[in-house]
Structures are given as structure tokens and as C-alpha cells.
């Protein structure tokens, strides 16, 4: 009933400790009877989110408008038609309560007040603020009621796109909750892993100068090295409902694809300098049950000239099987390096797309899928 944009990646990471638990060891999980490395969904999702926000400027997107009063008034009328006479005043009061200064445009005395600069509000934010304004209208002190409902947080325009994609949870003010449109799975190693320890010593420079021997500090750092299978899916229809603007949806999807590929959790980065990129990325757009291809690795991959080659082959075989039987996506893009890309390109209907074009092509395909419904 909706179009899903799904991203699969195989990424080798050298000795590293990307994501550790409270004992300092890299996180692991058992799958297929065997212990594997894991990077928790929340760790990589945060890395993707920070990369996304660093690059995205919401004011790049259309329907920035100074005429936000009209926007909110129309939404109030949709939600509560009986407030028709008060809708204008309510809208202006709502913006006043959230701290947005409205001024009447010069030369037009009969026009509504507008904001002095352009701003982007997602459809979900406008809906939420309208609901808050309608409830506050019934209260004795509307301004105070709006403040209590944290109306300011509702329209935080720095995060309009980011919230629609990644969601928000605020335990004590459930109105602020936004259901994420994306779903990021735990990254799982494709092969068995042995946790390892690095015993280190640190030298005290001043003691050394004073000709004293012995380490200043000794300790261990846990690490492991693994080839990960990563998966993420975006519910394109929900993103459209949250944002309300096809340009914003296209931008969000393209930047999500780019951030998924280019981001990495920063755990122990200075110690291990483990920044890598996926060796191959498979992007699909289609309807039907979103398909995690981790089943390709339920039987742990055995080394055969490294882990990447057999992993790519296992993924290609499994994907061909799945896409040929119970879940055929509309579009399949493959992007990667040399041999792994070649192997994945063997999946039926797969198209090799260079990385510079991949985010835009994926976003365009998702929107086409959405329109086709």
C-alpha cells in the first residue's frame, strides 16, 4: 500500500570499536548459531542523522513562505470548520505564542501580517500547530495554553525535514511525537567474529625525561574487524504525508541515500581511524513487504580470499532468489567498487549507477513509484 525505498550495503570495517556497550567491548549478536559483530541501529542512525543535518539546509526547499498566517488558517479551517470567524486571529495568536514576529507588508493595508523572511514548515508541523491552536482556543488563556503545549517545539523549523524522516519521541509531551518514516536495522557482521583485546601502555613524557622507567598507564581496548551487512528502509508515502511537499521529499530521500553511504559512527575514531565506505550498495524501490536480505548471511560466510567476495556472492544469489519469487521491486540500482559491483549487477533488472547520480535517481524513482499509486 506504499512505496518503500530500501538500501542494502556491504561494508568492511578494519580493526575498530565503532559501537561499544557499557563494558567497552564492541557490540555483538548471535545469528545462525554464531557470534558476529554488530553496530546498533541507534548508533548508525545517529551518524546518518548528523550527517544529514550537517548537509541539509531546509531553506533550499520550496513552499518557503512568508504568508504563514494563510497556511495555518487554512489548516485550522480544515480541522475545525466551526472556527471560521476566529481562524485568522487564532493563527496570528499561535505564531505570536511561538515567538515568530509577524509584520504587515508595506503598502498593503488590508493583507494579513506576514513573516519578514522565508521559512519552511512541513505539513506535519502545520497540522500539529493547528491542532494545538484549536485546543488552546477553548482554553481561558489561549497564549498560556499554547506555551504549555510546547508549541514552540512544534514548529522548530531547523528540524522540519529531519523530524519527518527520523522522528522524535518526547515522553512527557506526546503531541510532539513524530513517527519516523525511516527504519534502520542493526548492522550485522556477515561472518563469525572473535572479540580481541589490544593491550596498551602509555608513556609519561616527563617521567621519561627524568630517566624513570615504567609505563604511566596500562590498559586494554577491545576491538574487532568485520564486514557488515547494513539495511535501511524509507516509507515514502509517510514521508510525503509528513512533509507535504514533493520537492522536500525528493531532497530528503536523496540526502538520506547519501548520508547512509557516507556516514559512520565515530566511536574510537582517533584510536583506530576506521573510516570506510560501503564496497557495494544495492538500492531498491517498490511496494510489498520490505525485505531485509540478511537471510543471505544466516549461514555465516566462510573466508574465501577475504570475506567481501563470498559475501557479495551470497547477497547476489539470495537477492536474485527473493526478487524472483516473493518480492519483486520496481527498480534495482547497484553502486560500488569493481568486483562486488559486478557480482551484484548480476541480479535481474539491476542497473549500475555511479554514486554521483545514485541519490537523485533513487529519489526520483521513489517519487515515480508514489505517483503511480
Amino acid at each position, binding site marked *: 500500500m506504499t512505496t518503500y525505498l530500501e538500501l542494502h550495503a556491504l561494508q568492511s570495517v578494519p580493526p575498530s570499536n565503532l559501537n561499544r*556497550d557499557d563494558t567497552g567491548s564492541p557490540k555483538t549478536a548471535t545469528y545462525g548459531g554464531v557470534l558476529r559483530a554488530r553496530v546498533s541501529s541507534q548508533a548508525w542512525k545517529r551518524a546518518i542523522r548528523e550527517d544529514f543535518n550537517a548537509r541539509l539546509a531546509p531553506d533550499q526547499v520550496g513552499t518557503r513562505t512568508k504568508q504563514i498566517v494563510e497556511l495555518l488558517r487554512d489548516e485550522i479551517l480544515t480541522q475545525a470548520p466551526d472556527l471560521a470567524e476566529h481562524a485568522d486571529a487564532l493563527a496570528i495568536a499561535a505564531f505570536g505564542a511561538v515567538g515568530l514576529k509577524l509584520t504587515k507588508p508595506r503598502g498593503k493595508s488590508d493583507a494579513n501580517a506576514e513573516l519578514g523572511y522565508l521559512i519552511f514548515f512541513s505539513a506535519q508541523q502545520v497540522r500539529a500547530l493547528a491542532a494545538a491552536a484549536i485546543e488552546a482556543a477553548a482554553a481561558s488563556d489561549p497564549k498560556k495554553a499554547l506555551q504549555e503545549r510546547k508549541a514552540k517545539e512544534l514548529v522548530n523549523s531547523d528540524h522540519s525535514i529531519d523530524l519527518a524522516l527520523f522522528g522524535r519521541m518526547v515522553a512527557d509531551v506526546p503531541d510532539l511525537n513524530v513517527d519516523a518514516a525511516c527504519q534502520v536495522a542493526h548492522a550485522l557482521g556477515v561472518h563469525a567474529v572473535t572479540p580481541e583485546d589490544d593491550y596498551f601502555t602509555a608513556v609519561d613524557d616527563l617521567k621519561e625525561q627524568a630517566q624513570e622507567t615504567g609505563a604511566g598507564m596500562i590498559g586494554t581496548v577491545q576491538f574487532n574487524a568485520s564486514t557488515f551487512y547494513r539495511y535501511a528502509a524509507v516509507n515514502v508515502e509517510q514521508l510525503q504525508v509528513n512533509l507535504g511537499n514533493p520537492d522536500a521529499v525528493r531532497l530528503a530521500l536523496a540526502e538520506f541515500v547519501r548520508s547512509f553511504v557516507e556516514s559512520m559512527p565515530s566511536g574510537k575514531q582517533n584510536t583506530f581511524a576506521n573510516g570506510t565506505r560501503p564496497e557495494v550498495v544495492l538500492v531498491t524501490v517498490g511496494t510489498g513487504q520490505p525485505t531485509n536480505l540478511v537471510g543471505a548471511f544466516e549461514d555465516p560466510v566462510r573466508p574465501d580470499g577475504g570475506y567481501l567476495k563470498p559475501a557479495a556472492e551470497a547477497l547476489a544469489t539470495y537477492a536474485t532468489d527473493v526478487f524472483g519469487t516473493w518480492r519483486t521491486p520496481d527498480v534495482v540500482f547497484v553502486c560500488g567498487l569493481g568486483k562486488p559491483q559486478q557480482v551484484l549487477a548480476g541480479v535481474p533488472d539491476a542497473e549500475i549507477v555511479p554514486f554521483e547520480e545514485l541519490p537523485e535517481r533513487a529519489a526520483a524513482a521513489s517519487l515515480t513509484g508514489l505517483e503511480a499509486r
Partner: protein
Amino acid sequence: MSVLVLRLAGPLQSWGSSSRFVRRLTEPMPTKSGIIGLLAAAQGRRRVDPIEDLIGLRLAVRGDQQGVLLRDFHTAHHQVTGASMPLSERFYRSDAVNVAFVEGPSEVVEGLADALRDPAYPLYLGRRSCVPEGRIVLAVEHERGTEELVRTLEWQAGRVQKGRHKDEPRIRVAVQADVGVFDGLQPARQLQDVPVSFNPEKRVYATREVIETLVEIRNPAFVESEAPPERPTPAHDPFTAIREAR
């Protein structure tokens, strides 16, 4: 009445029923609220939409592969202020395969199967990060009842697990079911996992009684092997001394 047979498998799954505060536990097998949530999401119901019609479905779950309990240490930071939010420990079952049998009127069950094949919201096994692996809808059965299916459906464990049991012709698996699925068995336990409302402002769960039992099913990976040779009597047999003394 028809039965919808679902395969709930993935690297991680988590089915909460009684967790408090920052320690989020998991039941060993899928809960009714988890499965109803999955079905409602597939149909496109939002959290605030009613779900009374789904509560009436009768549920049985068979734990084909138990898996391993996993503890995940979870930190969070406020996005704007950077302040550290409360640390939590979240438990998952990793490497588990469960089969759920959902019994209800035929049109409802068929509708649910169609919804699962083309879901409106992304599906997950208890938590959003637990993406299911493989096809979720195994079958829609119109002739056989839940109890017969529980006893006869093929063992869905993974290859490695099957390999560990290849000497056993029959496997014992745990089953947790609503009252009425197994005639003659009494409920052992109460679980507070019947969802009345998923509304984030006021989530309400009611209690149900569950029957817990073990069921023996055929092992499809059983390999008939020769009986091991009889072990010869050891050279030192202390009982000879006793027998001679008599």
C-alpha cells in the same frame, strides 16, 4: 475459521510485556500486542485508530528456534541541547525463529494476509530496528485448525540449528497459546499483552491467560545413522568382586 501462519524471524526481535522504566525486557516468544501491532501496521491503522476487531483473533505461537538473549546498552543524547538522556538496557532475542498462528474468520484472515504482503507501514518484530527476515506470511490455512497446524507444520529453524539436532527424529518445541487452542490443557500463566489501545497518550493493555506446553514435531533434517557399536565391558569391573563374594 481460517488460520494465518506467520514466520517471525530475524537477527533481533523483542517482545515486551512488563517492562518498567529503563530496563526494557523481552518475552521469550512473541506477544499478542506485538503481533496485533504488526497486523494493524500492515493494514495501515495509526496508533490512535481502534483495534477491537483484532483482539478477538485467537493466537498460538511456536518457538522453533529459541535464540539467545541479548542485552543492548542504549544511550541517547538530546539533539538540540546535547544533554545525555537516561541510559537504558534493552533486551532482545537474537537468532530466534517463531511461528505464529492467528485464527479468525476467513475474510479477516485473508485480508490480513494481503495486508502483510503489501503493508502500509514498515513492519518490525517488537522494536522498529528489528526488521523481519524472509517472507512473513507462510500460509493461510482454511481446512486445518490451529492445534493440528501447530503439531504438523514443518520445523522452521535455521540450517545451523537443524544441524545440531540431526540425530533426533523428533524435536520438542515450546508453544504458548490462547485458552481454547488445546483442548484439555489449563492455562499456566497470565500475560499482560492484550492491547486495548496503542494511543501514545494512553496505552492500555489487558491481561490474558496463556497455555504453555511442549509439542513434539518431526525433524525434517533427521539423518538415520547406524547405531553406535556396543561398548565392551571395561577391564576393571568392580561388580565382579561383589558377584564373586556372594
